[in-house]
């Protein structure tokens, strides 16, 4: 409620040049509705152009759903793993970026910038081609399947982005917090651990969840390097069915899977951002 709604006195409202949208555009339930509408429409059109005697498109989609679900599970697994690895490495890397030692600060900055500004696909190819297909640890041989190698490839940009998140969050804490802790004789490490970083977690959570959503929708990139995830399997299904009218509904259907998974994350992120803004 704005001030002018609460009073009948003449209130001077702030002057705004142009209009700025209040909230950033986010995934919305209307996007989901549009997606379902498009899917239904494409199925309808597909049925209309399909020749007589072919099984219905809806039935075909349903028939392949378990396989797509199986592929999608791999997408989720890869996103989980890449996020975990990227965060586990990215947080220390980000802390190195605020180190008092210039060489540590410089090298971690360089690593962050390189991996943050490289196209994800390039990193993915590098990992696929440079990592061996198996590694020997002692006497045991550990195979490195394609999906694992590409998960490493995906975790690199995640790491660099998390590193920047950490650096930015630490920088955003008011300098007075550092001064106060220093004057209470906390060491730098104690200050970071007990005073600065706990305040950063709250600030970092929404952008971190945002990054996860971006990572999830980036996992189909691995289909290019031959990982059998949902996108690859959808392609396989289409070539085995060999029906052009299936093409549009099938990919829309896959898109719906991603929407259903990412939508709750988007909502939760927006809620958290809103909550932290108030305090």
């Amino acid at each position: 409620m704005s001030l002018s709604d609460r009073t009948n006195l003449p209130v001077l409202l702030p002057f705004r040049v142009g209009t700025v949208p209040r909230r950033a555009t986010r995934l919305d339930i209307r996007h989901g509705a549009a997606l379902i509408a498009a899917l239904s429409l494409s199925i309808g059109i597909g049925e209309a152009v399909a020749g007589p005697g072919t099984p219905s498109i809806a039935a075909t989609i349903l028939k392949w759903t378990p396989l797509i679900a199986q592929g999608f599970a791999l997408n989720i697994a890869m996103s989980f793993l890449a996020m975990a690895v990227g965060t586990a490495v990215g947080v220390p890397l980000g802390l190195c970026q605020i180190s008092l030692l210039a060489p540590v600060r410089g090298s971690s900055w360089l690593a962050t910038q390189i991996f943050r500004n490289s196209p994800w696909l390039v990193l993915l190819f590098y990992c696929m081609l440079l990592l061996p297909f198996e590694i020997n640890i002692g006497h045991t041989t550990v195979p490195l399947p394609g999906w694992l190698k590409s998960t490493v490839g995906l975790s690199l940009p995640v790491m660099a982005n998390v590193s920047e998140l950490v650096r930015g969050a630490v920088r955003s804490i008011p300098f007075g917090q550092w001064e106060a802790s220093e004057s209470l004789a906390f060491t730098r490490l104690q200050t970071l651990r007990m005073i600065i970083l706990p305040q950063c977690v709250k600030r970092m959570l929404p952008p971190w969840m945002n990054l996860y959503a971006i990572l999830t929708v980036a996992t189909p990139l691995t289909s290019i390097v031959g990982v059998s995830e949902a996108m690859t399997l959808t392609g396989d299904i289409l070539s085995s069915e060999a029906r052009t009218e299936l093409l549009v509904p099938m990919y829309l259907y896959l898109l719906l899977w991603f929407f259903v998974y990412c939508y709750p994350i988007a909502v939760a992120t927006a809620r958290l951002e809103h909550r932290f803004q108030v305090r």
Partner: protein
Amino acid sequence: MVWEPDQPLVRLRDVHKRFGAIEVLAGISLDVMKGEVICVIGPSGSGKSTLLRCINALVPVDRGSILVEGQEVNDPKLDKLALRRKVGMVFQQYNLFPHRTALQNVMMAPIHVLKRDRREVETQARALIRKVRLEGKENAYPGELSGGQQQRIAIARSLAMNPDLMLFDEITAALDPETVKEVLTTIRELAEDGMTCVIVTHEMGFAREVADRVYFTDRGIFVEHGPPKEFFANPRDPRTRQFLSQIL
């Protein structure tokens, strides 16, 4: 050198500090005896806050000597943490830790820095919160407290380290006029208990009442100092007179 209580607790000699082209401290000398209350007044940008930050080594000085209980602060081998355990500081912007309750704010440093027993610290912390008249607010977060309340918790937080010296940096400058009084009362009681205090303030009435000596700084030097009655009644230097006439 062993420090004896009859020597100055803080001894500044010809302290210089420069930020780029601006000489913030241009030769400051000052002796503070144990139990004394010193008020530093002067126009903005005259180096008052920097002076306090130099005493507890938050800001390194360029030249000169700062002795705190006989320990040289302007020394690369200085144990900063040992110094800061003896010197408490309260800031204009309170700087409470927003993710911790009032009680936790007070307890953190004694537990983690001094490694004292948690239960003993809690007893002391509750007593300090009572002393600054905020009992019942132990479990409130800083965001739920008013400016004056936050500042009093910040004072309690600093006192929990049992410092020998307290530095106050314009601690009422960000407060509403009504809440200024409650904070000043807390400091007055502290001074009466014999705490050695260096106070940077714009509250002339308070300085007149609580200080043993008042120092007036302008452009990085102490222009004039004296006991408050004399200082405020008969300022000798024209710069002091001009400053006082502007704000009194």
